[in-house]
């Protein structure tokens, strides 16, 4: 009886541990879009790393600022040199939670709208952000997509008055990540 109870407890602990499923992607895509009267500016970063813990609904992103690719070389240079100051702040980080985790079944194929919130650090400034997104479970892989807006000013990024017509105050961020189960190597 007693032995059985201990075994059950150990098994419970192990089971809870095993269910802590980790998913990883190294090539998530983050795009940045600024719509302004003179020009639209778009940049794509296809080298974003993200980890997702499905059992707890926790996830994190690390974005290397220098990996954003622009159509115009000068935009890329100014983005790094003058605005994001990527030598001083090389990474943007996000760490957050899926707030309505119970509505998602990670072991069942399907599409689930979710709400997320967490801390986003860009340019040395951390802000609490909330966003909505979609989780799609398909054959053991997990696809996450989200779209949200950021106010440039919130991250202490100053736009000189001479270029207010070139750069938007609020920029659109799109995230697309395809996770695969993480195998410890």
């Amino acid at each position, binding site marked *: 009886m*007693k032995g059985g*109870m*201990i075994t059950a*407890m*150990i098994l*419970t*602990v192990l089971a*809870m*541990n095993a269910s*802590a499923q*980790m998913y*990883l992607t*190294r090539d998530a895509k983050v795009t940045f879009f600024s719509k302004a009267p003179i020009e639209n500016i778009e940049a794509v970063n296809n*080298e974003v*790393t*993200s*980890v997702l*813990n499905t*059992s*707890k609904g*926790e*996830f*994190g*992103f*690390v974005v*290397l600022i*220098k990996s954003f690719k622009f*159509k*115009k*070389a*000068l935009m890329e*240079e100014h983005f*790094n*040199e*003058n605005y994001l100051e990527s*030598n*001083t702040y090389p*990474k943007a*980080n996000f*760490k957050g939670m899926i707030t309505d985790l119970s509505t998602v079944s990670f072991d069942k194929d399907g599409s689930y709208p979710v709400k997320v919130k967490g801390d986003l650090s860009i340019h040395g400034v951390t802000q609490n952000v909330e966003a909505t997104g979609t989780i799609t479970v398909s054959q053991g892989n997990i696809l996450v997509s989200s779209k949200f807006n950021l106010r440039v000013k919130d991250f202490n990024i100053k736009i000189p008055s*001479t*270029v207010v017509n*070139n750069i938007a105050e609020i920029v659109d961020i799109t995230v697309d990540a395809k996770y695969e189960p*993480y195998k410890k190597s």
Partner: protein
Amino acid sequence: MIKSLGILVLSLFIHGICIAQDTSDITKMLEAEIKLAEKNKTEYITATFKTTRLVNGHSLENTAKHVLDVKISHRFGTIIGATGGAYNIFGLDNATMRLGFDYGITNTLMIGIGRSTDYKTFDGFFKWKILRQSKGKISMPVTLSYVPTISYETLNPSDSVLLLDLKRYPSHRLNYSNQLIIGRKFSDGLSLQLMPTIVHRNFPHDDGPHDIYALGLGGRQKLGKRTSFNVEYYYQLQSNRVPGSHDALSIGFDIETGGHVFQLHMTNSQGMTETKFVPGSLNSWGKGEILFGFNISRVFNVGKKH
């Protein structure tokens, strides 16, 4: 009963540890992954200088692929002295200019052509980045570029008594420069470069030799995000230098706005191509024979978007 309660507490405690590990796992995993990604990636150092010229000469910077850089440069007469003073509105009356077009064929190869007032000279060059300063997977401490330049003087001999000899051979109008640029961005603000240069002049308009050997030294220190202070000096080796000439020394400021870079400088050299300024100038900084000049650079994206 107490014993099993103890086991329950213990197992919950163990579970707690597991959870604690889980929480740190996300951050730790990301850190490990990003470290690996950075190690496997070569990051080329960019924005070593604001533009492809330091003052008169080349910086190690190239025009990006499919970018056209239109450069309009002026050098005025000396502020004081024979071409300066109030009568010449401190040199403004003696303006010379160069109109230039630079184009990036790839991110490591650019070509350029220009036309200068002085001797009505056309010039052409290419700049090839042989090595690029980088870190990560490929680590390279310096950038190395090769810049050959050729210039052709089209001034009609009847316009100048000095040039009567030009009537004989068109080749007399040709001058060449071969230059290496070895440079490094030491920090966000500080970049330095060395420019060993050989200039060959088919028909010097001075008493100097055909071949001039010089070592250029240049650098910039950023003063703000969009401004920098530049210095450029071309030292002519004593054995082969133009008699009576003073080495070209220039200081300047880069001011960057959107697609423009404005370069404002003080220099003792009116020449804007290597074949003209590397052999030095009769103007001496020591005697205050300096002149004001500026370059305006405007970039345009042409060709296919990559």
